[in-house]
């Protein structure tokens, strides 16, 4: 139901009729005590709201899915950390250059498991968003992630990553400090980590910037997250020569959770509450936590060598070619 908890006045274009109804209902509820009995009216509005919500979300286009994934009220890594990571002890810095706030790392417990959490951070307030470059990490972010993952490996802690980035930051400093090398190094080193690695794409899975903390034994995607080799806008600009074809690009890129499951890129799709994660953090968090705990339980059964071998085989098998 409309709980009004998502961010202020922001409205997705295709959600406008929904938000309109939400407002009407809220309005009536506010006046109910003072001005009399609107119960039946409210009931009617709620019924049409729920029908419309179902209808809207039953046929989201890929481009609308991208918009949901980017909704400013959508839960971020930090929300999941606050909701179910107990005793979170943040660790800063890459011991090389600095501390990139676009990546959060730290010890924490998820269910019965002591873990290392590695997550993209988009930021909430404007100032924080800017400091995080809206979730676009610099090389020092990827190096921080790897440093903490190696720390986890040393002490036998499983690694849990939350992926939510439009992409790695494309800037002068990022290039000067080796963005490509930082990501490449993570891909190689994650492939051989001797502890379980589970990854959840919670919002945006933007290309190499996402994969840079995304090489794991089990990978899930939230229902309305996207994961692709390039953003739809970037793809449209290159292939259609206009960013306005982003919707067509989103379609062609097969970037939804369902499509990525089909391609074998992810192992599982975690369902979101009706109307998307931005309508209900706690229900979404519960599903995410459940999946992580269950995955860690399964992965704990493997001996280290077998775990690493299976991870290799998993990625080795990805791709589709023909034989001539």
């Amino acid at each position, binding site marked *: 139901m409309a709980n009004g908890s998502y961010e202020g006045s922001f409205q997705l274009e295709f959600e406008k009729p929904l938000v309109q109804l939400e407002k009407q209902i809220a309005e009536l509820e506010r006046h109910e005590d003072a001005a009399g009995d609107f119960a039946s009216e409210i009931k009617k509005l709620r019924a049409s709201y729920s029908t419309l919500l179902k209808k809207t979300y039953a046929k989201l286009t890929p481009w609308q899915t991208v918009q949901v994934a980017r909704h400013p009220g959508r839960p971020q890594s930090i929300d999941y950390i606050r909701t179910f990571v107990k005793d979170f002890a943040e660790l800063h810095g890459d011991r090389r250059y600095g501390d990139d706030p676009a990546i959060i790392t730290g010890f924490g417990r998820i269910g019965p498991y002591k873990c290392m959490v590695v997550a993209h951070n988009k930021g909430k307030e404007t100032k924080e968003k800017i400091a995080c470059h809206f979730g676009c990490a610099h090389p020092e972010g990827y190096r921080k992630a790897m440093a903490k993952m190696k720390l986890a490996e040393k002490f036998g802690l499983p690694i849990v990553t939350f992926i939510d980035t439009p992409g790695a930051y494309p800037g002068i400093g990022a*290039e000067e400090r080796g963005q490509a090398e930082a990501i490449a190094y993570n891909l190689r080193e994650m492939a051989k980590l001797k502890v379980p690695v589970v990854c959840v794409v919670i919002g945006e899975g933007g290309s190499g910037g996402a994969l840079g903390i995304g090489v794991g034994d089990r990978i899930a995607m939230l229902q309305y997250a996207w994961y692709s080799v390039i953003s739809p806008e970037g793809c449209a600009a290159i292939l259609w020569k206009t960013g306005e074809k982003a919707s067509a690009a989103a379609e062609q890129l097969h970037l939804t959770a369902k499509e990525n499951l089909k391609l074998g890129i992810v192992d599982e799709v975690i369902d979101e509450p009706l109307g998307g994660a931005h309508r209900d953090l706690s229900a979404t968090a519960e599903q995410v936590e459940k999946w992580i705990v269950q995955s860690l339980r399964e992965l704990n059964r493997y001996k280290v060598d077998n775990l690493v071998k299976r991870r290799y085989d998993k990625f080795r098998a990805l791709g589709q070619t023909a034989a001539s």
Partner: protein
Amino acid sequence: MSQVPGRSWQEVVDMQQEKSGVPEGLWMRCSACEAMVYRKQVAMNLWVCPECDHHYRIDARQRITQLCDPDSFEPKWTDITPTDPLKFEDLKPYKQRLKDESSKVDHPDAILAGTGYIKGRRIVLAALDPNFMMGSMGSVVGEVLTCAIEHARERDWPLIIVSCSGGARMQESALSLMQMAKTSAALARLDDDGGLFISVLTDPTTGGVTASFAMLGDVIIAEPKALIGFAGPRVIANTVRQELPPGFQRAEFLVEKGFVDRIVERRNLRSEISRIIDYAGK
């Protein structure tokens, strides 16, 4: 200055002219210094401008011919061919694109790989091909590279990959993206076993190729002035809204910033690779 011993220069020139895709004619204008240069002389100079030293892009076949001892190269994995897993269609269907591009090269996708010798040293060699969809990495490139890496590991031969690529191939979306993880994972095993990987970066090496295998060489060498980076210069300029510093993302810039070991001119590649193999290979 014989780079391809055992074969006359005339043969090499003929061969390279056939493949070069540069419009025929006795003379050509250098795209870098605008000097009129004798085409045959450019070809003999391994497609480097004799006036200004500009290194022209060359296709995978020429690259391999330039690097390997004559007739020593044996192509492998050429039976791995592209598909259109997403039925991708932009202004042109991917299927059609693949068909059109395949007429420009003599191998099935943007890569040619196999085994050969460089100055008598056994190697596994792969070269990306800019003439096929700008050397972009989709499933075929990733698979062939992984086969090459695994082959080098099994045989304990040095691995050389010459990159020339715009990055991951959009038309295979996340499947292309995963080739970054796949090739890097294969290199992790090679690395664990002490195998030697020499990564050669040529103009251009960008995007998902740079952010995976290309930056994982034990030794990384680059041709002069090659564009090397993660994001494209235009994307960066649009993001930061300021002028990019001179020489930004060029090979010399990467040496200065500490991400490339050596810049090697094309005419010296064979001897430099041989030298590194003698130091680090088995």
